[in-house]
């Protein structure tokens, strides 16, 4: 079976991308929003440091055997860049980059900045909790689209 590497990316690689990746691997429920404790206890959630920017970190595999990864680009507009890096090296059949930035709401932005940017998690995490619960249903929809295989797209 041909598998690909699905890489969820956002600015920090800490919140929306991590949650989307864990929904994709099945570690988080996609039928309903799980309790917030389940999300914030994810091993990668709200844990990144400055050294993690640009690193592609593996989260797991999905039901089809595709590898699921997360990436923080330290930039809010990296879709064109990452697709360009893949296109120019003829690697489009091996990678699928999925941008979770459109689902990063104001709560997540401010909370993420406080927690990761200013190292004030006590202030940032309450806001991140609100933001991630609001974004969750949209991230589920995004993952459903991202999880479609090329064959499914062709058949549709």
């Amino acid at each position, binding site marked *: 079976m041909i598998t690909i*590497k699905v890489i969820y990316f956002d600015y920090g690689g800490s919140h929306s991308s991590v949650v989307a990746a864990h929904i994709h691997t099945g570690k988080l429920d996609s039928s309903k929003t799980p309790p917030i404790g389940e999300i914030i206890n994810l091993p990668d959630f709200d844990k990144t440091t400055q050294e993690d920017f640009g*690193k592609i970190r593996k989260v797991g595999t999905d039901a089809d055997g595709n590898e699921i990864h997360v990436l923080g680009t330290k930039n809010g507009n990296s879709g*064109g860049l*990452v*697709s*360009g890096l893949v296109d120019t*090296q003829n690697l489009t059949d091996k*990678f699928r980059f999925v941008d979770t930035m459109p689902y990063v709401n104001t709560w997540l932005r401010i909370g993420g900045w406080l927690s990761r940017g200013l190292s004030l998690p006590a202030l940032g995490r309450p806001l991140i909790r609100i933001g991630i619960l609001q974004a969750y249903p949209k991230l589920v929809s995004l993952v459903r689209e991202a999880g479609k295989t090329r064959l499914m797209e062709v058949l549709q």
Partner: protein
Amino acid sequence: MNLLFVARTGVFEALTVGLGYLDQEEQLESSSTFGNMDWEKKAELIYLGRASDGNEVYCVGNKYPDIVVRINEEIKSLAGQVDNPLKVLPISIPGTESLYTLSRLAMLPLVGSYFARQAKSVTLQHKDELVSSGKNFRDRVTGKAAAKPLK
């Protein structure tokens, strides 16, 4: 091989260095990409052409060129064998630090065009260094720098 020049601004610094690599620096001022803020906002790779050494040359702007280098290395590492690899070349030329701020201001509505002109002016002031940097990269890539006469 493909080459990607990355600087904090794509349509000012990286473009000029890339044109220097291609020996097309005289086309800078007439280039539709030079100072084109629509391209800068997209943050996509801009294809500049094929060099005489056969390398395909691209440029892009990113506030953190080193992170672009790292992302590309991670992609190549995950991919395993890459038939057509891309080498990312980060650029930082002393004296051009103001270009990033000017390029951000150039994205503002109404007043943006003023700052875009300022950024173009600063780029042209440093054109020689930027172009030389591109030519130096080419000499390194093609190994010309090693061709010093033996004493």
